[in-house]
Each structure stands twice: as C-alpha cells, then as structure tokens.
C-alpha cells in the first residue's frame, strides 16, 4: 500500500525538497512512523509527546484527521494525505 503524502515547504528540508512522497501505513500513526523512518526527524515535527502537534494540520483526502480519530485515523489504498502548518499567531 502506497499513500501519497504532500509535504509543506517548511518540512521539505527533511524530504530533500520533495513536495510529494510515498509512504505506507494503515493508520496515521503507522504512516508517520514510516515517514520518520524514511525521513529521520520529520516525526518530531508532527508529534509532541506522542500526540499530534496543535499547530500542524494533517488531512486525509479532504478531512482534518482531528475528525477522523487523530493518530488512529484509518488510511486506505488510494487515499492522499496532506500536511500543512497552521497559519496562526498572536
């Protein structure tokens, strides 16, 4: 199973500047583990103390993973995952 993952500009230093990468995983948690194996360090930019970082948004197709069970969100063949940093501040 290969899932297309879109990487935001700020994380492309981890992916040798690739905008789209392929990863495997039946859940978001597994997918992030695979991403971090391929691109060491990227997992730490997505997770904090084992939970999704508040100001990183991850989508499966068009849906925010927060509404799909977070790290337990299921991913199936043909889905695409998009990672976007929040645009936020004070």
């Amino acid at each position: 199973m290969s899932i297309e993952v879109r990487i935001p500009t700020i994380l492309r230093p981890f992916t040798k500047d690739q905008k789209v990468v392929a990863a495997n995983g039946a859940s978001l948690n597994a997918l992030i583990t695979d991403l971090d194996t391929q691109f060491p360090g990227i997992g730490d930019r997505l997770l904090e103390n084992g939970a999704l970082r508040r100001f990183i948004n991850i989508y499966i197709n068009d849906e925010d993973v927060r509404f799909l069970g977070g790290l337990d969100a299921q991913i199936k063949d043909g889905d695409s995952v998009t990672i976007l940093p929040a645009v936020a501040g004070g």
Partner: protein
Amino acid sequence: MSLTISRAFVDAIVEQSRAEYPDECCGVILGPAGSGVASRLKAMVNAAHSPTFYEFDPKDLLALYREVDDKYEEIVVIYHSHTETEAYPSRTDIAYAGEPGAHYVLVSSREEIAPAIEFRSYRIIDGVVTEEEVSITD
C-alpha cells in the same frame, strides 16, 4: 529584502482590520508561482475570533493551498492585525510561522497611535525575525 505592495491592498488590509476590530483580522496575498509578486488579495476568516490570536480555519487552509496549487500561485504575503500592540511579530507569531518564503505583514490599529496605522513587513525564518522595507505603489 523588501515588499512591494499596491496602495489598494494596503487600504484593503487596513479597512479589514478596522471592520473586524477588536478581533485580529487575517488573510493572504497570492501571486503567480515563483514570481514573488503580490497580486491577488484574499481575506481569511480568523477562526479564533480573538483580539489576541488569529488562526485560519483548518478547512479554509486546505482549500487555500489547493486553490494556490490549482492556479499555479504561491502565498506571497500572510498578514494579520494587532489591535493592542505594535506591528511587530509576537512570540506566537514567531513560533508558528510556517512559510519561510512569505512576507509576514503586521498592521496595528492600536489606540495610542489612532488614527494612524502601522504597516510593517517581516521575514520569519527558523525563529529569526528580519524586518524589511515596504514600498507602496499607486
């Protein structure tokens, strides 16, 4: 480093900051991919509806990036207003700045300078803030 922006966009951002006061307002200016030219202003909803915080709604954020990709554009400017403090990036602005290629524009409409408005632009890269010149064209 500098930002070139039209008078019409400056006026539109200032107007939006007044209309949404006391909440912070926010938005982007897009341009053709790779051009760095600020050519299309898109006001965004501050999902935080707060005088001290702004955040694009996650759904709007995805739609924005899809639109930018579909139209071969890039995000040239990310702007927001400060309603009580100067137009300088706050600690949270710096912590969450996620677009190293964008100009971060801050507008301040705080009371002690009224009716004047502060309009300033920065690069925020890896936690380092660099102010840049703003040149306004007619």
